[in-house]
C-alpha cells in the first residue's frame, strides 16, 4: 500500500484557491489515499471543503506562526510531517508561495522537483510529469523518483470533480518554532480588482499594440467585464505603460490557458503565442490579415477593434 498523495492547500485567510480542488481531483485519480495538508489559523474548520473533493484525510496544523505563509516555518513543519507520515507524493500549487515552498523543501530533502506541471502520472515512488518549457513552445516529460515525489501544479489545468471523502482530521504536532522564521512579511497589499486573476480566469481578453492607447484598453476592459474575464496584454501594451506588468501574457509574463482567449489588436509575436496558445478557444481581432495570431485563432476577424468590440458587446447583451 502506498502512503498516499498529499495536496498542500493554497489559501489566504481561509479563502481556498481553486487550484487546491484541482489538485485533490487529480490526486483522486491515482486510486491511492488522498490527503489535504493545511497550515494556518482556524484551518481545521476547512476540512469539510476538502472532503467534498475526495480528501480521505486532512492534516491540519494550527498555529500563529502559520498565519501567513513563511518559508522557514512551513518547510520545518513539512519536513517533520514527511518524516513521520511518509507520503508517496506531495503536490503544491505553482503559485508565488507554492513554488517557493516546494523549491526550498526539495533542496532541504536533496530531492527532485517538477514545477509548473500540466500533466501528471504517479505511481509508487515515481512521478512522470509533463512541463511546458520555453513557455509552451516545447514540452518535457520529467521523471521524479526521489522520495517523496514533489511537484508544483499549474492552476487551471486539471478538472475539478466532486468526490466524497472521509475528510478525517489529523492534527500533527507543531514542529516549527519562531526560530525557523527568517522572513518578516511587513505588508500585503491586495490588488484592488473586481476581475479574476489571469491564471485562474475562464475567459481572458487581452489588448495589444492595436489598442493604440488607454482608450483602446478601456474597450478591451469593457468586453472583459461583460464576460467576467481577466484582462491581459501583449508586451507592446505593457511596455507602452497601458497595463501593469503583472498582466503581461507571454514568455516573460504569464502563461494562461482559459476556456476562451480574446486577442484584440495583438499581432501574435512568438513570445506572446507561447503564453496563450494552449487556450481552448481563441478569438482574434486584428486589422492585419497577415497577423500570425490568425494562425492559432479558432475565430478570427480582420477588422478594426474600435468598431468590432462595441458592436460585439451590444450583440452579446442581446
Amino acid at each position, binding site marked *: 500500500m502506498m502512503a498516499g498523495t498529499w495536496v498542500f492547500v493554497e489559501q489566504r485567510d481561509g479563502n481556498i*484557491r481553486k487550484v487546491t480542488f484541482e489538485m485533490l481531483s487529480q490526486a483522486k485519480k491515482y486510486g491511492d489515499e488522498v490527503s489535504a495538508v493545511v497550515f494556518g489559523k482556524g484551518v481545521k474548520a476547512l476540512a469539510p471543503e476538502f472532503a467534498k473533493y475526495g480528501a480521505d484525510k486532512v492534516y491540519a496544523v494550527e498555529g500563529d506562526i502559520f498565519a501567513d505563509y513563511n518559508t522557514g516555518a512551513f518547510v520545518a513543519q513539512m519536513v517533520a510531517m514527511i518524516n513521520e507520515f511518509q507520503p508517496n507524493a506531495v503536490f503544491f500549487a505553482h503559485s508565488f*508561495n507554492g513554488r517557493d515552498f516546494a523549491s526550498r523543501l526539495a533542496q532541504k530533502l536533496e530531492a527532485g522537483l517538477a514545477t509548473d506541471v500540466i500533466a501528471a502520472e504517479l505511481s509508487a515512488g515515481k512521478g512522470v510529469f509533463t512541463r511546458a518549457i520555453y513557455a509552451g513552445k516545447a514540452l518535457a516529460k*520529467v521523471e521524479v523518483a526521489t522520495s517523496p515525489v514533489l511537484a508544483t501544479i499549474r492552476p487551471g489545468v486539471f478538472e475539478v470533480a466532486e468526490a466524497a471523502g472521509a475528510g478525517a482530521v489529523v492534527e500533527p504536532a507543531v514542529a516549527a518554532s519562531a526560530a525557523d522564521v527568517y522572513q518578516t512579511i511587513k505588508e500585503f497589499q491586495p490588488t484592488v480588482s473586481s476581475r479574476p486573476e489571469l491564471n485562474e480566469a475562464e475567459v481572458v481578453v487581452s489588448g495589444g499594440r492595436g489598442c493604440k492607447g488607454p482608450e483602446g484598453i478601456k474597450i478591451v476592459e469593457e468586453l472583459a467585464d461583460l464576460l467576467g474575464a481577466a484582462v491581459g496584454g501583449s508586451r507592446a501594451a505593457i511596455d507602452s505603460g497601458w497595463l501593469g506588468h503583472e498582466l503581461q501574457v507571454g514568455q516573460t509574463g504569464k502563461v494562461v490557458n482559459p476556456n476562451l482567449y480574446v486577442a484584440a489588436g495583438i499581432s501574435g509575436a*512568438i513570445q506572446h503565442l507561447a503564453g496563450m496558445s494552449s487556450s481552448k478557444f481563441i478569438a482574434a481581432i486584428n486589422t492585419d490579415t497577415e497577423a500570425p495570431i490568425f494562425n492559432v485563432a479558432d475565430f478570427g476577424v480582420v477588422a478594426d477593434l474600435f468598431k468590432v468590440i462595441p458592436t460585439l458587446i451590444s450583440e452579446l447583451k442581446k
Partner: protein
Amino acid sequence: MKVLVCVKQTFDTEAKIELKDGKISDAGINLIINPYDEVAVEGAIQLKEKGVAKEVVVVSAGSDKAMDAIRTALAMGADRGILVTQDAGADEYARAVALGAAIKNENPDLVLAGHVAADDGSSQVPTRVAEILGYPHINVITSLEVAGGKVVCSSEADGGTQITEVSLPAVVSSQVSWNEPRYPSMKGIMQAKKKPVDTVAAAAADNKTTIVELSLPAAKQAGVKIEDEAEVCATKLADWMKNTVKVEVK
C-alpha cells in the same frame, strides 16, 4: 557590500523551438542573458552606483558559451565574473549545488538572480541556492532597499504586492518589471574584455530528475477567418462566442 548575480544564458524569447534527434536544437538560435537575470544584473549595478554595493560579481553555470552572458553582464558594469563549467543536462538540483559552491567561496552579502529562466521555466534555482547557503530569500521582487543589514523588497505575489524583510546575507530573485536593463555602452564592451573571469569546474552533483521525453505541442489549426464590414464581423463573432464557446454574459 559584495553583490553576486547569477546569470543563465538562454535562447532569445523570439526563438522558434525545433527538435533534432529528440533534443532541442540550438542551430541558428540567438543566445541572450535570461531576461529575468538581466534585470538582476541591472539591479546590482544600480546598487553599486548608489554606493551600496562595492563589488558586483557575476556567476554563470554552463558551457563555454555562457561566457558570452558573463561578458555582457561585465559590459553592463559588473566587475568580474565566474564561469562554473557544467554540462547543459544538469537539473535544477545539480545547478543549484554548482552555483551554491561557487557562491560560498565568494561569501557575498547579497545574491541576486532572475526568479525564473525563460527556457526551462522552473523557478527553482535561486530558492535552492538560498537553502544551500543557509540564507533567507525573497522571490519575484519589483523593488529593493538595503539598510541596516537588512533588505526590504516588494514582490509580485498572487493577488497582490507583498513587502518582505530579511536580514543579510540573503538571496533575492527578480521579476522582469523591477527595472529597465541598460544596453552596454561601447566603452563598457571594451572594458569588459579586460575584466577578470575565473573558470571553475562545477561541484560534483548527480541529477535528481530525468527528462524522459521532449516534444513539440500539437500545432494549433487556424479556424475561421472573416474579412468583412466590422458590424458583420462583430455579429458573427458574437454568435460564435454564444453558440460554440457558450460564454456567459454578466
